[in-house]
């Protein structure tokens, strides 16, 4: 879980260089058609794409561009929830569920394997019955 969380946060750390317009368009949602910008040719989506290019040319970081668009269109413009505050829950919840699932499977497997005891040896024959079987067999062989 910690490794996955580190990987998720590392994506932000990589955004040190100039942001890529195509990447941003895949991470932002058109508020009218509610698909990502790279999938939309709606007028507002075209305007947002132009805005992204303007801001990249002006030297803004990925975070600054996203913040600017959130201040205009709200958090719904982000295709993925933010990795901070309340949005962090959306990232951690699946990881938590995965860990809980693994723990549950391990516990169940241990429980089931513990129940599987070696088969009990057959109960000894009643001595009287054993004697009668021997007699019958002896008679049959004669």
């Amino acid at each position, binding site marked *: 879980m910690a490794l996955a969380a580190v990987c998720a946060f590392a994506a932000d750390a990589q955004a040190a260089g100039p942001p890529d317009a195509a990447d941003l368009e895949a991470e932002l949602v058109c508020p*009218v058609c509610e698909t990502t910008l790279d999938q939309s040719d709606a007028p*507002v989506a075209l*305007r947002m794409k132009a*805005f992204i290019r303007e801001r990249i040319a002006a030297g803004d970081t990925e975070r600054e561009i996203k913040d600017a668009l959130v*201040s205009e269109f709200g958090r*719904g413009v982000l295709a993925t929830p933010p990795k901070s505050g309340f949005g962090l829950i959306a990232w951690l919840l699946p990881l938590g569920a995965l860990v809980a699932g693994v723990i549950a499977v391990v516990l169940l497997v241990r429980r089931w394997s513990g129940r599987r005891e070696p088969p009990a040896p057959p109960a000894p024959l009643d001595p009287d019955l054993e004697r009668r079987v021997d007699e019958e067999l002896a008679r049959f062989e004669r």
Partner: protein
Amino acid sequence: MAHRGRLVAQGVAVGLVALLFLLLVWSLVTEEGGDLAAAAARGERPEAPDFTLERLDREGELTLSTLRGKAVVLNAWASWCLPCKEEAPLLEQVWRENRSRGLVVVGLNSKDFRKDAQRFARRFDLTFPLVYDGPGDVAADRYGVTGFPETFVLDREGRVLEVFVGGVDADEDRARLRAAVDRALAT
């Protein structure tokens, strides 16, 4: 013991499903938008959902309910919307003609950049109040606006008299808007 635990788990699962179902029903029942146009068409005069939004034409905010006592033409628009450009001069004209009679035209700019909206207002010389609803929470969620423009005529008690879906550009629509404004002012 194990049987009891299983029963509790099943009870929790059924409870969760029931809770989700109730939430779904609640969200459908409390959904305000969409029905306004149909209710107004039936002559029901539903109450216009209130809002407080930042203004684009000056500093500060505007709360719809503070306009009680005046008739209101609430126009949902965006600068990138072509029919909005065509009807903007009409809205300004209606505002100027009826302002002294107690009409307020409110431009509800939605799903737009603030600067684009302000540029639009300058281009069309709009002088009526403009409010900003960038995420569309008011236009889409409360008023059920699914496309731009959409215009709501409210009477002096804040009830929806008539809804115009799409641009008010044809002569017939213009006459209908003016008639709705007269009715709203007469309340």
